[in-house]
């Protein structure tokens, strides 16, 4: 018989029950309904809709742009988080608060603002368009909008982890002869990599589902700059509910697989150095080994 472990805070059963009900109502039920609706179509039909030229292009734009945006943020978000944690500078709190703005701003506002900025006659657009870089109403615009929207995810996931790195570890590396670059690559980066992956996954997931900001800057040209969420909406507007559901289900499945993969990778990098052997065993061997 398993010994009953006593915990400081009781109520595991209640809490688990609540969690399951909550998740069921909020996530499983709507998603399940969607899958049920989609099952009115055959598997073959769903695949047919998903592999249509227009939907395929939309998937490519959605996932491609999301991936790029998340990757851009993984890099620059790391720098922002690093600066915010490690260096004191005037206006630091202000910058820190600025990072959260994309969370708070209605995404449509963000989209319109970015579109205005990057349009051919906008403040930024008028300088970069002569250089041959067209941002507004192109897939590049989608990447810009998604980068804006997902910045906080990477920064906020990394901040506490960077704060946790003891400066002693860096000093130890320096005293062992490591250059700054070696210290970063060999000591600091491995420590923050799992969190960076988490931030990346969160940003990516958010970007895949983003609608409001993108439609204003994307131009929404079928086959070029049309994202899947928009395609779903347009199908709904034509009362093609089944078609919309089919696309949604495929998107759901793809997102789930990608997120699962990232999470597995994240879990692996975070846990490979603590394949937890009980401490007692180690301690017993230790007393055998120490003189």
């Amino acid at each position: 018989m398993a010994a009953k472990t006593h915990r400081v805070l009781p109520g595991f059963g209640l809490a688990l029950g609540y969690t399951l009900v909550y998740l069921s109502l909020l996530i499983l039920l709507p998603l399940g309904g969607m899958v049920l609706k989609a099952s009115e179509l055959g598997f073959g039909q769903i695949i047919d809709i998903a592999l249509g030229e227009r939907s395929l292009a939309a998937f490519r734009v959605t996932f491609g742009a999301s991936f790029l945006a998340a990757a851009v943020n993984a890099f620059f978000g790391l720098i922002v988080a690093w600066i915010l944690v490690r260096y004191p500078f005037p206006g630091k709190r202000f910058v820190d608060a600025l990072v959260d703005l994309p969370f708070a701003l209605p995404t449509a506002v963000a989209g319109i603002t970015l579109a205005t900025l990057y349009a051919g006659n906008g403040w930024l657009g008028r300088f970069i368009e002569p250089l041959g870089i067209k941002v507004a109403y192109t897939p590049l615009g989608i990447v810009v909008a998604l980068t804006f929207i997902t910045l906080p995810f990477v920064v906020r996931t990394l901040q506490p982890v960077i704060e946790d790195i003891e400066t002693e570890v860096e000093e130890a590396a320096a005293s062992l002869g490591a250059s700054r670059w070696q210290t970063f690559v060999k000591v600091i980066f491995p420590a923050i990599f799992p969190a960076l992956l988490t931030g990346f996954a969160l940003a990516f997931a958010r970007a895949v589902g983003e609608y409001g900001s993108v439609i204003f800057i994307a131009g929404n040209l079928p086959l070029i700059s049309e994202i899947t969420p928009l395609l779903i909406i347009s199908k709904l507007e034509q009362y093609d509910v089944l078609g919309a559901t089919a696309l949604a289900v495929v998107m759901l499945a793809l997102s789930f697989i990608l997120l699962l993969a990232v999470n597995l990778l994240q879990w692996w990098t975070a846990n490979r150095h603590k394949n937890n052997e009980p401490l007692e065993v180690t301690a017993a061997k230790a007393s055998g080994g120490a003189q």
Partner: protein
Amino acid sequence: MSIEIRNISKRFGNFVALDNINLNIPTGELVALLGPSGCGKTTLLRIIAGMESSDQGEILFSGAEASHLHAREREVGFVFQHYALFRHMTVFENVAFGLRVKARKERPSDAEIKRRVMELLGLVQLDWLADRYPSQLSGGQRQRIALARALAVEPKVLLLDEPFGALDTKVRKELRRWLRRLHDDMHISSVFVTHDQEEALEVADRVVVMNHGKIEQIGSPDEVYSSPASPFVYQFLGNVNVFHSRVQGCYAEVERNESAEKATAFVRPHDIDITHQPSEEGLQATVQHVHPIGPVVRIELLHGSEIVEVELSRERHEALQLAVGQSVWFRPRQMKVFNGDDLLRSTPEKQAFLF
């Protein structure tokens, strides 16, 4: 490699961490920096390691100016109180780190690295843990790994910042002895910081007692314990009873005459003897507590309103049969008198006191 510290000063804002420190550490010596927290001992160690810069003064390694060198160029091994091991690396990789980051032309081959690391792990008797991660080790094991890691780059100087501070008493004792042996085998200079006087006295060749950013005394463990240079050293190293006395000639009088200058007399608890007979040179007191602690018996006497601590051997206590509430006489066998301005007063050949 010898270390010379010249006129080092360091402030943090208004706080003076180090105030004009001068210290020479000859090659091969094991030196303890001893003092209460906030006395500047860790700051001094970090300045030697190049992890902190001094506001003034210079550090010389083997007679050559080293103040401008970055930590990675100083060839110094540093051991931290909380180990600072690389969590995502195995024990083997932790120890190998210093070798692997060497410039390509100096870097040993993989086989050589493996040989050296296993040799070091053998030295710290943890070669069977090579594949583990630091989180799987006990505190004592982690600190030994940290030492092996510091030694891997063959430093000329080993610096240890409260190396055993986070460990329990038994492990700490074991590691102390082991550090001493290691130091003797490696022929390097070592400096370690501690606030534990027992540790400093047991391990070090020389003890540097620090307080408020200044060096109070430098000397062998025996010197600093038996002839402390200042009241601070007296009080920091071991228990002590403090009597306010007046000095007359070479006699320190506690409680007698109203003449002469004020002074303070220091007596160690084990330098006090207790008798049942009234004695001319003793003071009367009542026994307040009797605590047998291991090999000694600690007695608390109440003299007037002051508590006097006395340590008796078990045999002496057996002979005296002290009971709480009893009235007894006590007199010091040895004492040290300091003037009000902290200068040593009594001359050793005439350990004079009169009660």
